[in-house]
């Protein structure tokens, strides 16, 4: 099971956090501080796994961003690396060669995507296309709702003119 997902910039800034196991607010910031200290300090050729408090943290660096997932000691680390890559590829397709700024300004979209990939700390969908389809469908639902709202307010505006 994935206990939490963490996106860290190279400067240690948090870009996304998702907690599937209960961690109190204080605990969360402590975890982030601890892990960013460990992970950002690791050299490029080392393995992508860090043993931490009886768990394992699998991380992978993409440009300036570290994608980290914390799993149980007996989970398959290599598979988690693939899950991270899966997530990154979907982000990449959605944003069109994703960069850190996309994830900062559209952090909520990144969360929506993550919610289509993981639930309860388990993988939900192995098809990138399926995820893209569902996200697109929901985005269009939002757009329609917005259009309706604006046309409604136009109509009200016109009526009250």
């Amino acid at each position, binding site marked *: 099971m994935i206990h939490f997902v963490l996106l860290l910039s190279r400067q240690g800034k948090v870009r996304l956090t998702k907690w*599937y196991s209960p961690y*109190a607010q204080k605990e969360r910031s402590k975890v982030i501080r601890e892990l960013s200290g460990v992970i950002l300090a690791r050299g490029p050729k080392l393995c992508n796994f860090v043993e931490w408090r009886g768990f394992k943290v699998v991380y992978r660096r993409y440009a300036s961003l570290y994608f980290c997932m914390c799993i149980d000691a007996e989970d398959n680390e290599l598979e988690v690396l693939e899950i991270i890559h899966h997530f990154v590829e979907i982000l990449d397709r959605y944003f069109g060669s994703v960069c850190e700024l996309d994830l900062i300004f559209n952090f909520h979209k990144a969360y929506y995507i993550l919610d289509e990939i993981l639930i309860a700390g388990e993988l939900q969908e*192995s098809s990138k296309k399926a995820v893209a389809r569902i996200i697109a469908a929901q985005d269009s639902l939002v757009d329609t709702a917005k259009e309706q709202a604006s046309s409604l307010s136009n109509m009200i505006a016109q009526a009250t003119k």
Partner: protein
Amino acid sequence: MNPFSSGTRLRDMIRAIRACKTAAEERAVVRKECAAIRAAVSDNDQEYRHRNLAKLMFIHMLGYPTHFGQMECLKLIASAGFPEKRIGYLGLMLLLDERQEVLMLVTNSLKQDLNHSNQYIVGLALCALGNICSAEMARDLAPEVERLLQSRDPNIKKKAALCSIRIVRKVPDLAENFMSPAAALLKEKHHGVLIAGVQLCTDLCKASSEALGYLRKNCTEGSVRILRDVSNSSYAPEYDISGITDPFLHIRVLKLMRMLGQGDVDASEFINDILAQVATKIESNKNAGNAILYECVETIMGIEATGGLRVLAINILGRFLSNRDNNIRYVALNMLMKSVVVDSQAMQRHRTTILECVKDSDASIRKRALELVCLLVNDTNVKPLTKELIDYLEVSDEEFKGDLTEKICSIVERFSSEKLWYIDQMLKILSEAGNHVKDEVWHSLIVVISNAADLQGYTVRSLYKAFQTSSLQVGLVRVALWCIGEYGEMLVNGAGMLAAEEPVTVTESDAIDVVEVALKSHSSDITIRAMSLIALLKLSSRFPPTSERIRELIIQHKGNFELELQQRSIEFNNIIQKHKNIQSSLVERMPVLDESTYVGRKATDVPAVKPSKANLSGTSLNLQNGVTKPPAASMGDLLDLSSDDVPATKSSTSDFLQDLLGIDLGTPVPSGSAFSGGSDILMDLLSIGSPIPNDSSPPNSVSSSVANSSAVALDKFSSLTSTSSSLSSEALTIDPLRGIEQIIRSPPSTAPIVDLLDGLSNHVSVSGSEKPDFPAITAFESNSLKIAFSFTKLPGRQHDTQIKATFTNKSSNEYTDFIFQAAVPKFIQLHLDPASSSTLPASGKGSITQTLSVTNSQHGQKPLAMRVRMAYKVNNQDLLEQGQITSFPPGL
């Protein structure tokens, strides 16, 4: 429009925050935004609610408190539109967790949304439930989720399956409800549903044995079919990862198979074939393939697989181990750890490779490999392995040395059948990484040395040599000090020379140089310094010509701020100066420490993984009990004294005083010792008179207050206290010290017992008159004993009174070892001069006199009061009498 609702868009706020150059600026921006959002919240602003929540989420991510936004989430979730719900659920998952009570309020909205006609809204609700539901919510909403498992839409189905996982994890009792819908999911074609379904089955197997049985019966076939289909499927671009179709599904099915096959021969047999197929077919040149192979090996090791399949698995691991990719090597080591029980012979083949991994530059790999090496050690390979590890210790990273040292020590101890080898290895470790060696480890080394009579000379000489090069390694210095103190003469005379040993010439002053270096080194802690003092004292008797130099070294510490050192310095100086006659018997070699007692105790200590300091001190103090073969009887007696100390020293410091006092209850009074009664009477006074003073103050303050008033009688008290509290590792050296203290005090000495008693005054009537002369009184009288007090006052010193006590024996037996003790209230100071004798002849044919000097600081306000206690022996039987004296003439 509401003037307070913030006009900035989410994008603008993020930009503003990013533009901040300092943390203070950022805080200011966030504070402003939060204020605006709070205002909007209290105005119940609807238009910008979702934007405000989005802002709050960003602020939350930066680590600022955002609890005031929690209710906003609930309001958004309760609204009708999809966009509001979407952001509301996102906020709910980010800002809340399952432990917040607010979450319960959302149960109803969730229930409605789970029954919504829009599949995406159902999806949102399932996702939120799956990510943060609490046990209560799980119970409430389980029926809805169960129903959704039968939905026709794969998107809902897979989400419901994952949601069920969360529910079953929170409430395992519900597992039975989910087993048949879960089994049905395995018949699906959609990969998302399959992945979620397989995972649900795995979790159900973990949660309930009933579900495991059911799924074993109904799903074994299905899982084999899924794995066969996915592994044989032709190229499927949607699921393809580096040439393999859906590795995620592969891995999840393999995991489920492990659950199903574990401990079940039939199920295992059923899946053997497909496992063999996967293990041989999957390419291992990409991470995805390796991930599957890794899972496959784990499943083969987990189930009742055939021998051939196991060999296949071990071979895969062997391939992994020689892979250049660190990730692969890491998982291989990890896997080998698990399989070492299954097939340790096959593991031995990879020993060299594993040993190489210990020296890897990657900390994760090193750690794994080191653990694995420890599992691989056996009688035949222990020597080369230890040599390799110790060699590596020299060059390893500083932060890895702790782990490495611990493991090497445990290996060396485990295989310590050859004492010479064990001592040699330990000395190497101590000189390389003595700072990382745990106290128990060097303690047990000392136990071994003390038992190996033929190696003591060799050991002390090796330690002397090692000290020359590694004098900064704490562990080494301690062991060296102990050994030089004990076996100093072997260092000089070269006794017990081994055949292969290189002779060294050490003079007596060289040996003392070593101790001096340790004593004066700035890096030495109090334990080392204390041990140095002991070593010096011991050497002073081993090398009589140097005793003047030693005394000078010792006396330098008479003003040390550390009570322990100060006390030792003063006492040892006295021994060297004034008690030459008993010195040599005092510092006789330590009796052999009993190994079996020590090992037994260690074994019982093992369950406590990391013994606390208090525990440690208990352990080391225990060592004294190990002394069961005393060479000198007198020493043995004294050592036995402490036998009741052990449980007490383990207790917390706050009731230390009490404990220490309690200890002496069980302590036999040693013959001829004047002091032990000192604490006895204290104990009495404390338990009878008043609530224990100083109860809450740390023990050190107690001991120092006692010591400062030049108390000698309470020294045992203080030394015990300070020793146990600050010198846990010091215990090995305590025994001789203890003995010494007792003997020092044998000449009946002064016993100013102060500060610990009050509350006696109310028994005494106050008298205002003053007389120049005071009548003598009979202070105490029983059937066997009479005490008379006569008083003299020095002119001009009203506060001071000299009391001459005369003891008379009324019985027909002679009293031996007579000790008189007295205690007075706080405002009085008492000084006892030595008694005229310790033997009281029978039937009043003689008497003992003793002078007491009393200073009444409240002269004229409060009268004198005193408690007394007499301990003596009749026909070698201990007798004790005590009483209270309130009949002092008024005006004293």
